């Protein structure tokens, strides 16, 4: 059981979350070419090591998270909200707290 430290809920079992996918993909604009979309949707790296992933806290706060996870050891290096605005707000709050 991987334990994930949700920025909104605290540390929870991974069974509360569902895995999304590759978090490093920059999806093309909707009107981009089908070749660009093909690369984004189908051409994925099979990383042995630290990978950026999206996870959904589906049985918790329902927030999408970006997680750096080592695919070899399951070690989690970082967790942040997938929404960049929320991530920025949280980190500035933490800085203010310090």
């Amino acid at each position, binding site marked *: *059981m991987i334990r994930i430290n949700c920025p909104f809920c605290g540390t929870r079992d991974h069974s509360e979350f569902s895995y*999304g996918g590759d978090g490093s993909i920059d*999806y093309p*604009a909707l*009107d981009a070419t089908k070749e660009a979309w093909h690369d984004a949707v189908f051409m994925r790296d099979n990383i042995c090591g630290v990978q950026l992933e999206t996870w959904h806290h589906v049985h918790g706060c329902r927030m999408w998270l970006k997680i750096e996870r080592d695919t070899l050891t399951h070690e989690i290096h970082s967790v942040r909200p997938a*929404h960049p605005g929320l991530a920025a707000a949280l980190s500035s709050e933490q800085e203010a707290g310090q």
Partner: protein
Amino acid sequence: MTARRLDTGGRIDRTRQIDFRWDGKTLTGFAGDTLASALMANGESVLGRSFKYHRPRGIMSAGVEESGAIVTVGEGARREPNVKATMQELYEGLSASGQNAWPNVRFDLGAVNGLFSRFFAAGFYYKTFMGLPPFEWGHGTGLWMQYEKLIRKAAGMGTASREADPDTYDHAHGFCDLLVVGSGPAGLNAALTAAKAGRDVLLVEQDFELGGVYLNDPEAEQQRLDLVEAVRAAGVRIMTRTTAFGLYDDGTAGLLEKVTDHLSRPDPHLPRQRFWTVRAGATVLATGALERSIAFDNNDRPGVMTAASAQAYLNRFGVQPGERIVIATNNDSVYGTAAELAQAGAEVTVADYRREPSSETPTGVTVRTGMAPLSAIGKSGLQGIELAREAGTSWQKAERLDCDLLLVSGGWSPVVNLSSHRGAKPVWDAKEACFLPGETSEPIFHAGSSAGIWTREACEASGIAAAKKAMGQAADTLAPGGWTTPITPLYEVRLPNRQSKAFVDFQHDVTGDDVRLAQQEGFVSVEHLKRYTTLGMATDQGKMGNVIGLALMAEALGKDIPDVGTTRFRPPYTPVAISALSGRNVARHFKPLRRTPLHDWNLRYGATMTEAGLWHRPWYFARQGETIAEAYVREAATVRETVGICDVSSLGKIAVQGPDAAEFLNRVYTNGFAKLPVGKARYGIMLRDDGMVMDDGTTWRLGETEFLTTTTTAQAGKVMVWFDELLQTRWPDLKVHVSSVSDQWAGVSIAGPKSRETIAACLETGEDISNEALPFMGVARVRLKGGIDALIARISFSGERAYELYVPAASGEAMMDLLWPTAEALGGCLYGMEALGTLRIEKGHVTGVELDGRVTIDDAGLGKMASTKKPFIGSALRQRPELLREDRPQLVGIFPKDRSQRFNGGSILCRPGDPEGFGDGWITAVTHSPALGHWIGLGYIAGGVDAWQGTAVLANDPTRSGDVEVEIVSPHMVDPQGVRMHG
């Protein structure tokens, strides 16, 4: 073996006699006995037959490593095979029997397998059958399966009950700062140290008493009692009869607590077992070490067992296990046992492989040096042991000693299984001749003999040190070892060119010869060796013999053990029942049940329910004496003639709100939503990124910045997750909020020519819902009689004039109490899923069975709904060449050629005379159409309607109806112009 119960001594309670049954006989034991100790005390020596050769087997150990006394416990639905008698507590009325033998373990006809043992050597299945005609190249599979059945019956491992498990099992969750596994000298001291430092400590012990090896040492009893008392006083939470069967990520441990397996009449409110998930800050593994055997001829005979187990039977269970005992060893650990057995009156000879063993010979014990066991004599009862002496690089027969019990100590294997679960690779220590726990960066700390520490004082100290390390404090690491004279490794004793049956895996009947054979055949990786010979793959995971197998493999390869390595241990350490894994999630609790707000109302009005995903929905409302077929045909016909009411509350409903809500929907749906006027609904289709259809539904614009999106019942959760993902990960700049409101609304569809009349009669203030005021796809807020606020949309799934009416869930029944009497008076009906299906099939409307994830919007005949004026999710990849092929399967309607015939959903559509392969298409749904008066269907066929004009097609269903000739027609089978719906 001539074992007998002693009059005094041991931890058993001789005042509490326990009657139990073994193979139909009633025997007697005492409280504190295991099934194994009680059987031994009763002189039962043959307890089972082996897996492949049906060799007689008896007790080989006193613990979890047991490979011989594997029995079936319980009767009827509670019959459980492969129970280790050494781990089963005795209770009044326990009923057990031997396995793998017919008619019984003492006289077994299957033992004839032993005569054909060469057929059962390593890789036997593959070589004998799979590689030869008629089995080669995938032929003859049927014949192979027949053979396999017979072989499996001849070789076996007990049989489970076929009845449903009558017991309950719980799932439980726990947290602690420190988890300590094992309560021997190391574990108790580790728990005490951490608890005294204020840590929340959980101590788990698989035995029913705390103490580990202390339990086998009467002189240590006071020390044990003091330690246990101190541990309790320090606030340690203690769980006995609990096995930590696996370690997982981030300090998670799986525990199995056997709650009632030791009780004759358990409280019915208690679960039989609890499956615990514990999250620990740190873990101390004080899991001990297991004594291993030596491979020599007939080393599996009843009467051959580990040396340490004799000490347990003598000191813990008060059983003298033999009268004339030979102890074969290569290390110091047996000498205490030898002395105690001699003191209890046995004649004891130690055959020590080492030429210069320990300096002190215990009183009453004879020691023969330089001797090793060569062959056990006697079949069901041990009569003696042939010893051998080393001569150069080979062995030479030395002498025969008579004995009724042979104790073997081939060295000790630390239990490194749990840290190996975490990927810590065990490391071979040549000096101690064992694998020691490997390095791990996780907070997991081995202590005691699980770290190769052999003396009790050092084990106690290592427990304290491990606890300190677990708390982040400095502590010295204790070195492994501790014997006076070092162990001399000894794995196998055999004469050159002499046939022998020397077992390395007793439960799976794997011999030394099997290991060498596998090597000869090219299986040089230890992982391949394991799978080919099945070494270590039985329910005991090869706890007594794995190391021997590896050593023999290394020898055969001319390598050292570290170069061969060891296989990675996998959970569970000991078997876990499937019932414990499933816990309470069985039968009605297997999955959640969802009920609509109208559930009870539907039942009161005669609904027969059906399951639709997690939902219970009305299937049909039968009138007196009606069959389902009569009911749904009547219901569907009534909708087209007058009016029908159907509960559609289970549809997914998502409130999409915010300044950018229209833009968001415009990107998600294939068709345009930006310009949808307030007060209008629109049917929409959404695709996945890859261009395939994800879901469909209607979206209602309730205000400039407020929409209500409906999804199919099945995809409601998935669509909600998708909206969340898009808004949070891809389009964070859009100012949109989505919330699931599926459970907040009760919804009904009111369909049929008299639907408007029905609703109008229920409105409070005579609001205008005429065709002009509320045209097709119009949306309005209305108020029902009694002041119930409602949303109404003129939407049709049935092809009739129809409305969906939503009220707050709590007002659902009140709405039905208004609508139903009105509709009934107009000759209407309530209708369920079956009639709903009929109506939509007649109209060619798609549902989940048509939109199965492999279908494009064009395949479903809805290509016109894909906008060419704007991009949307999936618009790029739906243009892939493969998805644009003209001959892709496309949605069609299906009629039987002979209109009196019927056909089945799931049939393959193919050309006459060609029912091979995948055919040209398939049927997704069928119904009897009251509008057309015959059976109709929907399906997909290559090229669609145009490609099959005038061509004969067969609906092929070989297992049910056979072939039915059909016609391919437009999917819009009733009222293709939609006149009825718009009127």
